[in-house]
C-alpha cells in the first residue's frame, strides 16, 4: 500500500497529492510518469510525477478531475492509502544547454512541465515560460514557474487574469519579435500542443510535446497508447511520453482518446448517484 501524505485542491477541480512511494521517489527523473490504482476495482491511471523527495520517499502528483476514477482519487485524504503506485515510467526528458528554451503550458499541463522546466533552467538555459488557461481559476503553479523562469508570461483565454489570449498568441509574438528560440516544450491539452506545433513549424523551431494517450499496463505490453509519429507507430509508455510535435499525428491521438467517452459517462453517473445520494461531481 502507498499512503497519501498530503491531499488538497489547488484550483477548481485540480488536486495536489503527495504519496509515499520510496522506490519511485528514489529513481524518478523529470518527464517521467507513474501509474496508480486506488483500490481493487480501480483502473490503472497514468499521471506525470511533478516532484519527488528521495529522502522522505514521496512523489507529488497534480491531476484534474475528468471522470470517475480521478473524482474518486480526489476524495482521498491524507492518511488513506493507494493500492498501487508503479514507476517511474517512460523516458526522462533529454536535458542539455540548448540556449533559449520556451516552455509553454496549458491548464493542468503546467504540472508536468514544472519539473522539466526546472531541469532545463538548471542546465544553464535561458528559460521563458508561457503559462495559460481558460480563465483565472485554472491557472496553477504560477509562483513556482515564476521562481525558475527568466521571463514568465501568463495568459487567459477570457482575459480574466493577466494577458488576454492563447498561449500561442504569446508565442507568436515572441517569434514575430525575432526572439531567438532554440527549443519549445509544450504540455497541455492536445489541441493546445497541436496549435503550438503549428506556430513553430514554419520557423523550424524544434518543439517537444508530452503525450497523454489511454494506457493500461504502461510497460510496453498492451499497445493501447500507440500513436503515429513521423509515419511510424510508437508506444508512448516506452518510447515517450515526449515526441517531436512536428511529427505527431494529433488528429489520431485526439480520436483515440475519445474511445471510452460513453463508458466514462456510465461510470460517472453511477458514481454520482451511488446509493441514491449525490456523491460529488459538478454542481
Amino acid at each position, binding site marked *: 500500500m502507498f499512503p497519501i501524505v498530503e491531499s488538497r485542491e489547488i484550483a477548481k477541480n485540480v488536486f495536489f497529492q503527495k504519496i509515499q512511494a520510496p522506490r519511485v521517489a528514489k529513481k524518478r527523473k523529470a518527464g517521467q510518469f507513474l501509474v496508480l490504482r486506488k483500490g481493487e*476495482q480501480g483502473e490503472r491511471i497514468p499521471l506525470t510525477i511533478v516532484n519527488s523527495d528521495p529522502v522522505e520517499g514521496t512523489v507529488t502528483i497534480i491531476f484534474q478531475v475528468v471522470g470517475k476514477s480521478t473524482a474518486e482519487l480526489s476524495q482521498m485524504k491524507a492518511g488513506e492509502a493507494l493500492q498501487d503506485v508503479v514507476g517511474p515510467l517512460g523516458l526522462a526528458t533529454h536535458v542539455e544547454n540548448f540556449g533559449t528554451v520556451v516552455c509553454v503550458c496549458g491548464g493542468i499541463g503546467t504540472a508536468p512541465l514544472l519539473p522539466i522546466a526546472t531541469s532545463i533552467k538548471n542546465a544553464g538555459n535561458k528559460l521563458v515560460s508561457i503559462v495559460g488557461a481558460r480563465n483565472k481559476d485554472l491557472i496553477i503553479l504560477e509562483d513556482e514557474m515564476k521562481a525558475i523562469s527568466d521571463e514568465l508570461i501568463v495568459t487567459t483565454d477570457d482575459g480574466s487574469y493577466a494577458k488576454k489570449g492563447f498561449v500561442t498568441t504569446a508565442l507568436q509574438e515572441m517569434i514575430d519579435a525575432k526572439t531567438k528560440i532554440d527549443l519549445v516544450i509544450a504540455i497541455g491539452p492536445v489541441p493546445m500542443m497541436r496549435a503550438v506545433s503549428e506556430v513553430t513549424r514554419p520557423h523550424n523551431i524544434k518543439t517537444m510535446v508530452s503525450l497523454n494517450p489511454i494506457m*493500461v499496463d504502461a510497460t510496453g505490453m*498492451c499497445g*493501447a497508447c500507440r*500513436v503515429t509519429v513521423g509515419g511510424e507507430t510508437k508506444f508512448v509508455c516506452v518510447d515517450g511520453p515526449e515526441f517531436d510535435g512536428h511529427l505527431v499525428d494529433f488528429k*489520431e491521438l485526439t*480520436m483515440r482518446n*475519445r474511445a471510452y467517452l460513453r463508458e466514462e459517462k456510465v461510470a460517472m453517473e*453511477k458514481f454520482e448517484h451511488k446509493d441514491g445520494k449525490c456523491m460529488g461531481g459538478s454542481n
Partner: protein
Amino acid sequence: MAEITPKPRPKPFSIPRQPMPEQPASVRVKNFNEVPYGFTADLAVLEAQRCIQCKNPACVKGCPVSVKIPEFIDLVAKGKFAEAARKIKETNALPAVCGRVCPQEEQCEAPCVLGKKGDPVAIGRLERFVADFERVTGNVEIPKPGASTGKKVAIVGGGPAGLTVAGDLVAFGHDVTIFEALHKAGGVLMYGIPEFRLPKDIVQAEVEYIQKCGAKLECDVVIGKTITIDELLEEEGFDAVFVGTGAGLPYFMNIPGENLIGVYSANEYLTRANLMKAYDFPTSDTPLSKVKNVAVVGGGNVAMDSARTAKRMGAENVYLIYRRSKKEMPARIEEIHHAEEEGIDFRLLNNPLQFIGNEDGWVTEVECQVMELGEPDASGRRRPVPVKDSEYKLPVDVVIMSIGNGANPLVPATTPGLDTNKWGNILADQETGKTSKKGVFAGGDIVIGAATVILAMGAGRKAAAAIHDYLMTGNW
C-alpha cells in the same frame, strides 16, 4: 470432496477415455465461468485405472518438467488424491494451472502407449483433478524450506517461469524475492488467459502457495525502470538474478487503419477483460467496448481466447480471420473446438488488407482477401498466396490483433552486458539459463519467444538447478 475407495480395477483397454463434463456452449457464451467442470472423484478413478503403468513411461519424457506421471496416476486409481497431488508437486509447483492450459496432446499424452490403439490416458484432466482436490479440501501441504544458504536471488517477473524458479530455489534454502511489474503476480496466467479457461482465484492460490513456501513477492516494481539489474546485484545485495519477463511487445501488421479506435492488440483486449475485469464494468472501473461485430486476426491460442472473450462480452458476430487453413493453425485442437462450438465464425484462408473507419475514427470495416496455400515457407507451413480479385469487406466494430508478441525491451535496454539476438530476446544457454552477464540467468518467452506455460516452467526448472549450482560453487 472426499477421497473414495475405488472398486476393483477393470481390465486395461476395457475402459474408454472419460470425457470432460463441461458447460453447454449455449450457456457458457453468456458467462465468464470456467468451461470444463472437472472430473468427479469417480470419473478420475475410472480414468486413472486406464493407465497400464508402463515400466519405462514415455509420458514422463514428454513432460517438460518430468512430472512423475505413472506414480501420481496410480495414487489416483487407489483413491489417494492428496498423496497424488504431493507427488506431482515434487516436480511441478503449478499443477492446477498446467492441468488446464498445458498442450497435453503434444506433450505427455502424445507418447502414451494407450494412444497407439485408442485414446491416451487423460493425464492433464487427472492433474487438474488432484490439484483442485487438494485446494478445495484445504489440505495443501507446505514443504519446509531447505536450510538457509544465506544467498539472495531476485526473480524478475512473476509469471510461470519466475514462479517455478522461485519455488525450486526456496526449497534449496535460498532467500528469494519475486519482482512483478503489474499489480498481481501470475504474468500471462493473470492478464492473458481468460477466466473461463483459467479462473484467476486459482492462479492466485498457486501464487500464494509459492509465497507460503517462502518466496517473497513485491508487486508494482518494474525492473529496468524502478530498479535496474545492476542495482539489484550491487546495491540490494542479491547474489543472482533470474529474468523471466515473458513476451511482452504486441505485434501489429503495419497495414492501413490499424490505429483506428476499436483496433486492439490481444494483450490490451485480454488485459482489460482478465486482469482488470472489464466484463464486470461498471463495478470494476476499467471499460471495454461492447459491440456487435468483432474480427480477431490470428490463429493461435491467444486468438481463440480473444474471440471467445469477445463473444462473452456480448458480440453477435465474431470472425476469426486466419490466413492459412485449419490444419496449420497453431492453436490447440481443444481450443479450436471450443471456439467452434461457441459460434465463432472461422474465416480461414483470409487475410486482412486494411481497416476502414468512420469520421470519428472508429473502425467500421475490415477489407480481406482470400488466400490459397502454396509451397512451404521457412516455418514449414504452406505459404499463403493471395487469390486475385478476391477482396471483400466485413462490417466490424472491434478488431483484435492476435498475431504474436516480441520481446519487451525494458530489461535489456537498461542492463549493460546482457546480450540479445536480433529480435530482442535475451541470449541464454538453453540448459542452464546462463546469460552473457555473470550472475544473471534468463528463461521462458524472453529467451525462446512466445511459447507455452509449461515450456517456460521447464526452462525455470533448469535455470533453478543452475542458479543453485552457481550460488553454492561460485563457478560461472
